[in-house]
């Protein structure tokens, strides 16, 4: 009987100590490489806007190097920030966004809680239905809504068209379904034991929501709030259709309709207005980004 010698040694490759740290270093390098590429790609437009906003109208018209400011000026910023009209747009946007966020939260939080925890007949279908309403584009809805408000105006004498507060009715049609949906996911990720403990302690549904769920689900609520604010702040089609008078306009429409006239573009002020308009959401995202990501990814994993 022949004996077979089995080489029990591992692979002949020499062990490389420090390979994990070397791999990590490479991963880090690649990460930075792609991050820099992405940062350049996505920051190019805002940088271009900033450069243009610092140019005078004459310098923009002269079509010199678009990436350089030869005679920097703050005249566009001064013109807008001292313009009652622009401040009015800003104010209208702020008021509308704050109200819409409040209305959205007041509707979405209880709705999400009910759909995720209060098991009732058809709740799953209803939850899906809520999200499906979000998928109907506003481009399909604006004419029926316009007609609806016109009829309301004719019947009741309450004029909603060309009033800023019509947006408080319109925007929640966009924000409520999505916010409800993301909070359903967040509430669903909260352990059942928590509400069971609350029920054992004698808490009502309302108390369970206010004392247990809202504090625990705070990141999700913040995420939904940010989303609602961003949608309200940046929405364009509805205010374009439903508001006309200058004192009723919100920022996105105000900038477009007052700084572009026919084929005459006031580029410096358009860029300035767009940058100033982008500032509030940018600040909010900068401070609450962690909550936003946590909220959006909630319920994505089990356990």
């Amino acid at each position: 009987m022949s004996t077979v010698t089995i080489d029990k040694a591992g692979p002949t490759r020499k062990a490389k100590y420090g390979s994990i740290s070397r791999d990590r270093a490479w991963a880090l390098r690649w990460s930075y490489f792609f991050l820099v590429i992405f940062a350049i790609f996505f920051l190019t437009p805002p940088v271009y806007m900033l450069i243009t906003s610092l140019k005078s109208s004459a310098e923009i018209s002269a079509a010199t190097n678009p990436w350089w400011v030869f005679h920097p000026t703050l005249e566009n910023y001064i013109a807008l920030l001292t313009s009652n009209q622009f401040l009015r747009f800003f104010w209208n946007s702020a008021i509308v966004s704050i109200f819409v966020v409040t209305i959205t939260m007041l509707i979405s939080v209880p709705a999400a809680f009910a759909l995720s925890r209060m098991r009732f007949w058809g709740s799953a279908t209803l939850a899906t239905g809520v999200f499906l309403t979000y998928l109907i584009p506003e481009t399909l809805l604006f004419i029926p809504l316009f007609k609806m408000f016109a009829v309301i105006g004719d019947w009741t004498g309450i004029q909603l068209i060309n009033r800023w507060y019509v947006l408080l009715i319109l925007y929640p049609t966009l924000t409520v379904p999505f916010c409800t949906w993301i909070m359903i996911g967040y509430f669903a990720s909260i352990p059942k034991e928590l509400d069971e403990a609350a029920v054992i302690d004698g808490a009502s549904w309302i108390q369970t929501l206010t004392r247990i769920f809202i504090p625990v689900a705070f990141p999700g609520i913040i995420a939904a709030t940010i989303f609602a604010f961003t949608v309200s702040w940046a929405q364009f089609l509805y205010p374009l259709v439903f508001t006309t008078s200058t004192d009723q306009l919100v920022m996105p429409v105000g900038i477009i309709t007052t700084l572009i006239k026919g084929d005459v573009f006031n580029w410096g002020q358009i860029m300035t207005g767009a940058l100033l308009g982008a500032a509030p959401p940018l600040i909010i995202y900068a401070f609450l980004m962690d909550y936003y990501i946590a909220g959006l990814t909630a319920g994505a994993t089990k356990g």
Partner: protein
Amino acid sequence: MSRRKLSRRQFVAATALSSAALITAPYVRGAHAAGKLSIGFWDHWVPGANKASTDIVNAWAEKEKVEVQIDYIPSQGNKNLLTIAAEAQAKSGHDILAMPTWWPHAQAELLEPMNDVMEGLIKQNGEPNGTVKYLGQSKGKWLAVPASVGSQIKGPCSRIDLMKQHAGIDVKALYPAGAPPKADSWTLETFLKAAEACQKGGVPFGIGLGETSDNVDTAGAIFQSFGAALVDEKGNLTVKTDAVRQALEFYKKLISFLPPDAGAWDDSSNNKWLVSGRGALIMNPPSAWAVAKRDAPQVAEQCWTHGFPAGPKGRYAPYLSYFWGTWSFSKNKEAAKSVLRALSQADAIEKMCVASGGYDLPCYEKLTTLKVWQEEGPPKGTLYHYPNPHNHQTLSIAAAPAPPKIAQQIYTQATLTKMCLRYSKGEAMEKVLAWAEGECEGFMRS
């Protein structure tokens, strides 16, 4: 609970007393006795131009005791078109709404006929130009009242110095201020040679081939100069004709002398081209020149607005008209008609033209020689020929004479500029014509 019963005798007595009291009471006319009127005007780009319209309307409202609300609706983001569409669907909205070019025809069924208003205005101001009749009338019915505000001719705006230097053309001699044009030599042939010379000189003509109106309007006028139309007035296809082929051949040559990115130009591109000093000619109303006055005065003082070059079938210039329409569901039609008459008086039109710095153009034959176009500058007289004061060219709109509902689609889809681009990029002539024919057949079906 007891209810007091009203006898027939008591009812009759009370009614008689009430009626007597109402009849014998002194008639007090309130501040807004004649009701309310809401107007949606086009939001003018010239600072202060809206004020002229507001003043005229307010003066009328004061006299007629009507409460007026005016909204200035911009064309940016197609807000004016969205408003027209939404109000038409809702059967509710402004009593008067400014409608650009094709929209009176598009909403013909929902507009109050304006024949009674137009008869008086034509007697006073003279005949409207042919384009306005084409766009504003349907089956003998005036659909809307032509508005001077926003109406414009998109003729050539040339650089006096560059045209002289590179093409050897003195545009001021062709179109002298205060005198009839001496422009027999200003033909499409001359125009093409000038385009070539200016391109070689590094200052190409700034004519776009994109899908926006400036580009389409120029193509429309050039096609009409060759007698080329895609669809005739009876709705017959006329794509595969020699006239269309000639127009495409001309454009192919012209495109080789235009900026390489002309196919992507929008309505602001040609303005920038002129104001930056990079081009010798653009096709535009005086808005580009007005911006140059502010941003590049040295460019502005070399600008001269004048007539279109003539083609084998005539000299055509694109005229874009705005209208004021009143919905058939308006609640105050009589007041609407009354204010439209006030806005269309010669002195009111002149006031609005002056406020717009000469940009706005009335369509009536007696109102093309107002002082404003003679005096605007620099250079003085630069706008003299802008309103076509000597009827030296036929005013037209691209895609005419096709039935307006078909023409609107040819215009909006920029079929003419697309054809020119396709042919210039090397697509075979017959293939381009077949494509255009297919497009037009689709427009006729929809």
